[in-house]
């Protein structure tokens, strides 16, 4: 039953672009049919995942494509089913959103379908070959999606950067699969034997950290991510940020599943990388002026938070402490869902905003909350969720991670101080995320419209709004009723061999019911407060502009901008961010118009990687001395090679 559901999901998703291709870009029915197929595929996939999470096992499906390659095995287990659910939800939402997208064409529906199919197949892959094939299909589909607006130079650059880094990742993963096959004797994903030498296991971990780290966007491998997410169409960014980069997390979780008792330093490394990613991601996000780049940096931050949970889980496995493992893994897995939901919501809301206002530069937006109230409300829900505030879903998963970190404080060795640092970082990151989203929401949706905002901007059609409502509803639902997912989380946790001190399950460790009660109380309090404010308002009072201290030449351009709002933070952390500012010198008493610019380039890409690669390219240029362009010289090379070979014999 669930096997057929999975096959139907993958098949429908993979072929969903065909009607759009047949109909051509001008006909609407092609894209509508493609979306319908995607939604049905997502429903089938989600049903298969739910069945597996409910305890039904799935018989493996063997696919032999060629006698040269070992047969590939596909089946869902509980871990992959957990990751499959957000894939289905987000791909369906993005597909519906695409219907309302102005600059349509057939490219996005076709490759969105391929991406959805390859993501599902990747999660179902149960051996190394199937994993690599579907991984590459996923990477290539995403490349074509990133390059949708390829007539813009910036987009082409981002797409090439993405393609190069994703292939670096695939290369490392080929080595990863090879090492695994060498140490287990088969390509199948099976638990690693304890007799496998420690060096091979550590090699597996390092290769996975590189390969999956590039895909997940762990600092310092994150450099491709902001450009790619900013350049892709918004609903593609939603899928990429929501689920595609999570495949890196899935890979790391799968490695932890293959090696159930890892050495302690794995967990320590994951925790440390999580701290660095979370902090760097959010710090760079605050300094961004581009709405989608900003959201992309927040993805890096959230990947860091997920890594904190995963590192905690690894530490729990290594030190044989069940509550660390359960809370850490639950926090990481739940945050994977939550980040997919709220980041998808934020990207879709940002996409609707950009769609209406025709720019993604934050400083040119403003006052959009009045023109598109529903989009603004959805963005606000996403923003509250991503900041980890109750009563939304981000709070629940961060709370689980916090609980795990607090219980790690009582551990011995290096774990306790590291956990203390991680708690501090997590708290700081939450506060910084709040700062960042106050900035974005205030500058984009509040205040007065700046000159460049399209006066006709509005919420857009139902195709743009419906996916946002679905995601916002899911965020609220998971935030208010987290006890619904606790059994599923418990199933995933139980998929690992039990540790010696059984901690009584997640339900005993995590106060899911109390979260619900507190969330409802909070909502009630908010409702009462709003009602009281409304009752106190004098109906005769007319709306007036804000008191401007008597300044006569008021203009929208003297509102806070994204840069000025964040200036204090950027100045304080300039050692990390290394901002570049171009200040005009104001020498006269009445200077003429001057230009001020500030931007924060990515430290790894712009200051480290690109200069280094330019050096390599210059070095390679020296080799062109060999290329003389004359036949005689080339024959001479052949001759010299022959002579050398004869001399060496």
């Amino acid at each position, binding site marked *: 039953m669930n096997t057929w559901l999975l096959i139907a999901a993958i098949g429908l998703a993979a072929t969903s672009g065909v009607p759009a291709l047949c109909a051509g870009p001008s006909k609407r029915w092609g894209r509508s049919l493609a979306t319908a197929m995607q939604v049905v595929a997502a429903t089938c996939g989600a049903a298969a995942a739910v069945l597996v999470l409910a305890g039904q096992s799935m018989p493996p499906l063997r696919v032999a494509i060629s006698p040269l390659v070992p047969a590939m095995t596909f089946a869902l287990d509980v871990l992959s089913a957990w990751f499959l659910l957000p894939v289905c939800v987000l791909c369906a939402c993005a597909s519906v959103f695409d219907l309302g997208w102005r600059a349509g064409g057939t490219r996005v529906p076709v490759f969105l379908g391929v991406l959805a199919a390859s993501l599902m197949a990747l999660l179902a892959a149960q051996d190394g070959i199937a994993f690599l094939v579907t991984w590459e299909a996923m990477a290539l589909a995403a490349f074509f999606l990133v390059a949708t607006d390829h007539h813009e130079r910036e987009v082409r650059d981002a797409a090439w950067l993405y393609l190069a880094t994703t292939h670096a990742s695939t290369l490392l993963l080929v080595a990863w699969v090879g090492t695994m096959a060498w140490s287990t004797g088969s390509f199948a994903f099976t638990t690693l034997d304890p007799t496998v030498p420690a060096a091979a296991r550590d090699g597996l971990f390092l290769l996975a950290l590189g390969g999956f780290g590039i895909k997940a966007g762990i600092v310092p491998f994150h450099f491709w991510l902001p450009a790619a997410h900013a350049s892709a169409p918004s609903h593609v960014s939603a899928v990429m940020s929501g689920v595609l980069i999570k495949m890196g997390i899935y890979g790391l979780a799968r490695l932890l599943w293959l090696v159930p008792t890892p050495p302690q330093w794995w967990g320590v490394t994951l925790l440390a990388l999580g701290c660095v990613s979370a902090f760097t991601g959010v710090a760079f996000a605050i300094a961004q002026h581009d709405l989608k780049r900003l959201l992309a940096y927040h993805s890096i931050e959230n990947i860091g938070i997920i890594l904190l949970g995963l590192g905690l889980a690894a530490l729990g496995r290594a030190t044989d402490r069940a509550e660390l493992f359960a809370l850490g893994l639950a926090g990481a897995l739940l945050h994977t869902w939550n980040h997919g939901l709220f980041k998808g919501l934020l990207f879709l809301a940002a996409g609707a905003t950009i769609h209406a206002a025709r720019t993604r530069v934050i400083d040119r937006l403003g006052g959009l909350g009045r023109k598109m109230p529903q989009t603004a409300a959805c963005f606000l829900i996403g923003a509250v969720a991503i900041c980890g505030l109750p009563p939304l879903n981000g709070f629940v998963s961060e709370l689980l991670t916090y609980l795990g970190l607090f219980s790690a404080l009582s551990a011995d060795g290096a774990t306790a101080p590291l956990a203390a640092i991680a708690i501090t970082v997590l708290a700081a990151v939450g506060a910084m995320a709040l700062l960042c989203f106050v900035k974005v929401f205030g500058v984009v949706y509040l205040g007065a419209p700046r000159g460049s905002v399209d006066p006709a901007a509005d919420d857009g059609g139902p195709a743009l709004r419906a996916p946002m409502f679905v995601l916002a509803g899911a965020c609220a639902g998971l935030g208010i009723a987290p006890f619904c997912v606790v059994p599923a989380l418990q199933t995933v946790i139980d998929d690992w061999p039990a540790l010696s001190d059984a901690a009584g399950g997640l339900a005993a460790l995590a106060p899911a019911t109390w979260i619900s009660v507190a969330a409802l109380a909070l909502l009630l309090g908010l409702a009462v407060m709003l009602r009281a404010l409304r009752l106190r308002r004098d109906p005769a009072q007319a709306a007036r502009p804000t008191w401007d201290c008597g300044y006569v030449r008021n203009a929208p351009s003297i509102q806070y901008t994204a840069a000025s709002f964040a200036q204090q933070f950027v100045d304080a952390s300039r050692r990390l961010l290394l901002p570049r500012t171009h200040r005009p010198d104001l020498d006269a008493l009445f200077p003429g118009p001057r230009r001020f610019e500030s931007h924060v380039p990515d430290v790894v890409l712009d200051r480290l990687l690109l200069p280094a690669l330019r050096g390599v390219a210059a070095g390679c240029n020296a080799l062109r001395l060999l*290329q*003389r*362009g*004359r*036949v*005689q*010289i080339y*024959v*001479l090379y*052949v*001759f010299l090679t*022959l*002579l050398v070979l*004869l001399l060496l*014999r």
Partner: protein
Amino acid sequence: MNPSLDAVLVLVVLLNFFTLGSSRVSAVIRATGTQGVLLAALPFLVHEPLSTHVVLAGLGTLAVKGIALPWLLMRAMRDVTIRREVEPLIGFTTSLLLGGAGTGLALLFSGGLPLAPEHAESRLVPAAFATVFTGFLVLTTRRKAITQIVGYLILENGIFLFGLLLLDALPVMVELGVLLDLLVGVFVMGIVLHHIQRTFSTIDTARFSTLKE
């Protein structure tokens, strides 16, 4: 030891030196043709009991290397009305010295090759190497496209000398196929030469470097 075989091989090597030292294109082509005629005689000398295989190989070589190719090249040279000088990149004396060094190296190399015992004493191997080196030398140091073709021919002559060791092992069809390939190759090169001359009004290959990028 076969004195007449050795004499022919010495002549072949001397013709190598002649091609390196000669300044006239027609003389170089004629020397290559003569080398082809001498090579045609070799199968009869190496393999004493005459067989159809040997006769076919010898006659084919004579027809292609001794007659057809020199005639084709002479005609090509007449058609493209080029200057009749060789125009080397290095001087004739240096070419000759390099040729001598190459022949010395050939003797050195062939001493160390793991040959079958019946071929170990044969002078065919050093002569083959020396001719191959000469072919390379002509290829790398001569400017004109037509002398490049001559270089390839000399190279092929060297390979043919080496192939004589294997005459018994190779089917005659393969041998004739190789000869046919060579004939067609030179034919095509002649046509290409003609077109190069028509398009660029020169066949100086040293100037063909604009396709470098």
